[in-house]
């Protein structure tokens, strides 16, 4: 059998190689800060991939995704805060004083974001189109203002985390270990997303994206499937938030602001909607551009703004689509093998 590597396989292989070797190379090049930046990219990549599930596959344009990211972060922040202070977590039964154990915090972050996604999704999915966009935005803003109003948890200034989560045997203060842990979580999440997207459930989502009325006419209770996808996506964002809280040792209401949702959305579109892997590229591109451009000028936004407009207008499959040389739909056909 002749070895025939599609462009897609090559791109994936190179990407994987880069992600795996980056910290080692960075260290060797005397630039370990790069690893820290890369961790940030990976964290946002998880958030972006989670958004792609509903945006790229389900055509649900949610401007509230940042809310779930923020919730995940705040769960970790609040639990750490109470553990550190030795104070009791309010509104919960018993006298729990929080925890810094990742085994407890992170799954809890995922569950709590999932829970909020269930409520917000259940209400928002009664609407469609631009109304859906606005109502998801509204809910995110409500949460944003809520967190600002709670002085115990920092209010507008946010909350500092005095300790990162504990996850034996890892030392999460070690940048390299943190990076590899995040990478492992990202790859696991991507693999999971890929299976979901190619399953019967995924087909329903894709069908809803293309022609929801027909899906109903065929016999699908589309609301239930969209809501489920919305919750899964919210949980993914929650995981990303938990990691972000650790990474920056800070949580703030800004994480929930609608402009944060906008940024994540940009990452998905820039990278390539509906490709599962594209958003990783999108996160990398956007954050790297910020890093690099901001060293030249503090007005780097002037470049990013038009760049974004151009990508939307002309690069239909995002950067991933351009690299792989196909539209996202064609890619998906291949990707199912």
């Amino acid at each position, binding site marked *: 059998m002749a070895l025939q590597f599609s462009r897609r396989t090559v791109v994936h292989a190179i990407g994987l190689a880069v992600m795996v070797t980056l910290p080692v190379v960075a260290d060797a090049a005397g630039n370990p800060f790069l690893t820290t930046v890369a961790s940030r990219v990976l964290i946002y990549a998880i958030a972006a991939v989670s958004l792609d599930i509903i945006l790229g596959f389900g055509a649900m344009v949610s401007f509230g995704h940042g809310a779930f990211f923020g919730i995940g972060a705040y769960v970790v922040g609040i639990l750490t805060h109470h553990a550190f202070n030795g104070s009791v977590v309010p509104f919960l039964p018993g006298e729990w004083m929080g925890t810094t154990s990742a085994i407890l915090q992170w799954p809890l972050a995922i569950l709590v974001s999932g829970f909020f996604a269930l409520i917000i999704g259940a209400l928002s999915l009664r609407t469609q189109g631009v109304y859906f966009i606005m109502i998801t935005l509204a809910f995110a803003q409500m949460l944003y203002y809520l967190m600002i109003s709670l002085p115990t948890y920092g209010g507008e200034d946010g909350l500092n985390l005095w300790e990162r989560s504990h996850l034996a045997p890892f030392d999460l203060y070690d940048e390299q270990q943190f990076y590899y842990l995040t990478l492992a979580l990202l790859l696991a999440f991507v693999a999971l997303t890929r299976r979901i997207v190619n399953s019967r459930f995924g087909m329903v989502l894709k069908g809803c994206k*293309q*022609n929801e009325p027909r899906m109903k*006419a*065929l016999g699908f209770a589309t609301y239930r499937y969209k809501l489920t996808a919305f919750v899964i996506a919210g949980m993914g964002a929650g995981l990303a938030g938990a990691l972000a809280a650790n990474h920056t040792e800070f949580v703030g209401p800004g994480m929930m602001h609608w402009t944060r949702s906008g940024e994540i959305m940009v990452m998905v579109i820039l990278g390539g909607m509906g490709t599962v892997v594209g958003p990783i590229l999108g996160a990398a591109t956007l954050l790297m551009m910020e890093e690099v451009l901001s060293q030249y000028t503090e007005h780097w936004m002037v470049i990013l703004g038009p760049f974004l407009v151009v990508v939307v207008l002309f690069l239909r499959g995002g950067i991933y689509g351009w690299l792989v040389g196909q539209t996202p739909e064609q890619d998906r056909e291949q990707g199912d093998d």
Partner: protein
Amino acid sequence: MTDPVLEVFELTKSFGAVAASDGLTFSVKRGEIHALIGPNGAGKTTAIGQLSGEIQPDSGRVRFDGQDVTHMPTYRRAQLGLQRSYQITSLFPEFTAEDNVAMAIQAQQGHSFQFWARAKRDASLRQPARLALGRVGLEDKANIKVTELAHGEQRQLELAMVLATGPTMLLLDEPMAGMGQSESLAMMEILRPLKGEVGILLVEHDMDVVFALADVVSVLVKGTVLMTGTPEQVRANAEVRKAYLGDED
């Protein structure tokens, strides 16, 4: 076997000042091909919409297979075996022909909250899909994306999708819209054997098709049924000629 599979009582629906359905009453027997004809604006598509559940009537009742489905959402009716095809092609443009049919079949196989197994390799979906495509003559187009199919082939696909679900009753809204002569004939040969198996409500403009296929014809004028009878009776009726056949060029 001769009890009605679909009963419509006094369906009324107005859009503003226009009464699209005005006391619509008729019934379709099991296995019967029942044509619904009428001049433009008579309210045929609105009628179909109320039967499929996509439009809510202002008043009246719809009974399907013994159940009152008047206020039942569309997806529930489909699960019960009432399937609809569209006058303006409504497919999944990015999917292949086989994907489209597989989707229809998947809807009938219980819930789709399965997250792990790859749907495109699921024989219980793909095999019946291929069979259904074969029935309408689209086997060799199975892996072609819908956007690359010719119009006639898309209409065939519309039909394949609803047939694949093993329906109790079909609502076919001008299935041959925009098709050429030979394509229409081919489709008639696909529909003909369904007589006796599946109840069909067929909205049609083409009189040749109606006379060739229909057991019963209802003439719809201004939202209400002018008369119901065999094709010959309808053809001979003077009022019908005046209201409808007389206006046709």
